């Protein structure tokens, strides 16, 4: 059964220097509060996995938490670049990071295969793309029935997964609603998992086929109201698109970024 912990305890107990960490949420339900707690605890040398690094990894990379990034689309959605990611990749600031990149389809399949306990995912992918030339994890297999050449990628099996969700009941069962992304897969694929939630309730009020993670499939739950902001939680608050646009200016400059980080992350405690 899942343990109910404070966010601070959840992070300090379950995330270690050098871990492979997946923090997911496809635009929706991105676990920003947990990301900030990781920054505050100055956890280092993480291999970070996320389809879309988004602002959360831009912040963590800028804060020096990462040594490697596995991703499939590294921009500020609808705005432009992730300047902290670019600064690390192009100039090695605050430290150089290794990158390993995929397509969305391959990463989605790799999470799916991880959840399914398989070592590989098979897809009709990467045809004609140069990505297999720069990512040696992408291989090709031949279908034993048709002879078709198909792409294969290793499944994703993180040490720790962190996601945000709408709510948990008091037994620790968690409801995810709306753009569910790969929230279920990334929790099931991981050795350990932390789920932050908007609130803890008596009854999930979930439909019969709702996306519910049972308590026994989760390691720790931490209540973190507005824990996905400036991303959003359907039914609770909207995406702060204005902040996503402002981030371009904040992140473009190292000093502005560091000031922002100090004021908005270090000077604030965990919820």
């Amino acid at each position: 059964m899942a343990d109910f912990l404070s966010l601070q305890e959840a992070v300090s107990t379950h995330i270690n220097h050098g871990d492979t960490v997946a923090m997911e949420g496809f635009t929706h339900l991105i676990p920003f509060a947990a990301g900030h707690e990781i920054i505050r605890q100055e956890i280092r040398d993480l291999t970070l996995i996320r389809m879309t690094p988004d602002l959360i990894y831009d912040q963590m990379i800028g804060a020096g938490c990462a040594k490697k990034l596995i991703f499939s689309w590294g921009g500020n959605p609808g705005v432009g670049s992730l300047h902290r990611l670019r600064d690390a990749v192009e100039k090695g600031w605050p430290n150089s990071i290794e990158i390993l990149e995929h397509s969305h389809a391959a990463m989605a399949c790799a999470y799916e295969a991880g959840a399914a306990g398989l070592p590989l995912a098979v897809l009709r992918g990467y045809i004609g793309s140069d990505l297999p030339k720069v990512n040696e994890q992408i291989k090709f297999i031949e279908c034993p029935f048709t002879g078709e050449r198909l792409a294969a990628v290793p499944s994703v099996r993180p040490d720790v997964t962190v996601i945000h969700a709408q709510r948990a009941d008091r037994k620790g069962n968690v409801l995810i609603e709306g753009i569910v992304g790969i929230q279920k897969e990334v929790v099931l694929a991981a050795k350990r998992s932390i789920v932050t939630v908007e609130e803890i309730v008596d009854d999930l009020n979930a439909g019969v086929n709702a996306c519910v993670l049972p308590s026994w499939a989760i390691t720790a739950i931490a209540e973190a109201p507005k824990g996905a902001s400036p991303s959003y939680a359907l039914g609770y608050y909207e995406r702060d698109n204005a902040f996503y646009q402002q981030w371009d200016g904040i992140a473009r400059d190292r000093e502005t970024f560091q000031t922002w980080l100090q004021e908005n992350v270090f000077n604030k405690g965990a919820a």
Partner: protein
Amino acid sequence: MSLEYTASEMMSITAARALTNDMTCFVGIGLPSEAANLARLTHAPDITLIYESGTLQTRPDVLPLSIGDGELCESALTTVSVPEMFRYWLQGGHISVGFLGTAQIDRYANLNTTLIGDYRAPKVRLPGGGGAPEIATNAREVFITVKHSKRTFVKDVDFVTTVGFGRDGKAREQVPNIGRGPTVVITDLCILKPEPGTNELVVTALHPNVTREQVIEATGWEIRFAEALATTPEPTSNELEVLRDLKARTHAHHAGQ
């Protein structure tokens, strides 16, 4: 009598017109999203729009800033997981058109959204592939919309993130179970299509008041023009009005909070 409009508006309206009511369109963020929703709000009210965030048959009232804004989910028929989206709906063969933007495009309609320069020492690092590499091969055809400039229209892309017709125009030959690839590229100057046989992009229509010289100037290879070169029809007042309303609503919404 002619209406006033910008080259960007001309581009979006022309891109929208490429879509028809019976299409199932996998929509990229940015220009494709603007064009696809304009189509839905004008001549193609029943077009099925799908975003990679898992929102099936969505009808947003404002343009999403990200691929996964709440608006997309709330106005969708249903929302599925991302693995399901890529596996069942895209790879499963249910998408008639993939609608993409790009940072670089070459004469064989290959797209580069990965980087400028060398992979291990990039001059400019771009966002990467996202959904595009598999949209380009699993959708039955691909539309591309992008602003025309010499920086964007290059003879050979620095990196083939997403295949058009490959480095030699022949990459799709003898590959089973894939779509036709790019069938049209819509820019703010003109419409380009792959030439039958070679698959090299040629200009098939110029937008009103655009000259061949402007296109030549904005293209990084010796661009050719179709023999029967058409002129794109001007925007209608209704198209312009719907587009401007949509953009105004969108701007107000995202600046909102």
